[in-house]
């Protein structure tokens, strides 16, 4: 692994933290890049080199992860949840959701209800550990990262 210097890593981490915080808003990747002191292309490359996926993909994963939690706990419709976590189109939401979890939001909700209450594990751990999503959530970026390490 090519070692990025600590100050660059901090800037990238701050950008990623902003995605974690403001996932539901229309986070603009060029604005994140500018905030971290990068051009858009350089930012996307650097982020991917450090975190194994692009900032856009990370934002999608964060939104889907939030949607999973709401589907399991909140009395809201799938459309409401879709908008609440930052997607503007139900079609895109369902497609991204299926890509990452292997099922539709409705199927996920049904399964969550059958399982009963959530596991007593802090939600942050489920988020921070990629294994919180099923194995078929494996993305091209992740495979590249595994191959490169």
């Amino acid at each position: 692994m090519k070692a990025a210097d600590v100050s660059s890593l901090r800037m990238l981490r701050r950008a990623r933290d902003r995605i974690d915080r403001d996932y539901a808003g229309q986070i603009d990747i060029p604005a994140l890049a500018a905030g971290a002191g990068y051009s858009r292309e350089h930012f996307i490359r650097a982020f991917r080199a450090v975190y194994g996926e692009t900032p856009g993909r990370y934002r999608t994963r964060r939104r889907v992860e939030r949607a999973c939690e709401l589907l399991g706990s909140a009395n809201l419709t799938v459309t409401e949840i879709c908008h609440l976590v930052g997607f503007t189109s139900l079609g895109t939401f369902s497609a991204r959701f299926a890509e990452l979890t292997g099922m539709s939001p409705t199927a996920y909700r049904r399964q969550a209800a059958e399982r009963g209450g959530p596991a007593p594990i802090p939600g942050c751990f489920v988020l921070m550990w990629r294994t919180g999503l099923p194995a078929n959530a494996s993305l091209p970026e992740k495979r590249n990262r595994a191959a490169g390490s």
Partner: protein
Amino acid sequence: MITGISIVSVWVLDQDSAKEFYADKLGFTVTNDLKLDNGMRWLTVRPPGSENQELLLMDPLHSMLDEETAQQVRALVAKGALSPGVMATSDCAGDHSTLAGRGVEFTQEPADRPYGVEAIMRDDSGNWYSFTQHKFMEQKA
């Protein structure tokens, strides 16, 4: 009988900055700040509501690690990959508001969880902590 964990080691990027963060922002007590003969700075802090648990704020560059490993650890801390664990609070929402006012970064606002109320906090180096008010603590209070 094992009675608990008395010291947890936390890798930090800069011990002066970490000392300020944990003492001035989080309100921890500095319990030791010693320069050892081997060059290591032994810096420990204790949470305000704890009597026998300390964090050892370690600088990887002045530790038992070789230079290359120390740089790898620094990179992991800086990119936000490491978490020392769960910080317990008696009032997650109240403390979150106080600490955020002092400039402490949170990546998640307090939210209700099955086990209590939880926020996610970063220290000044990039370590993340779950910041949790456990349900059982409310019952004791």
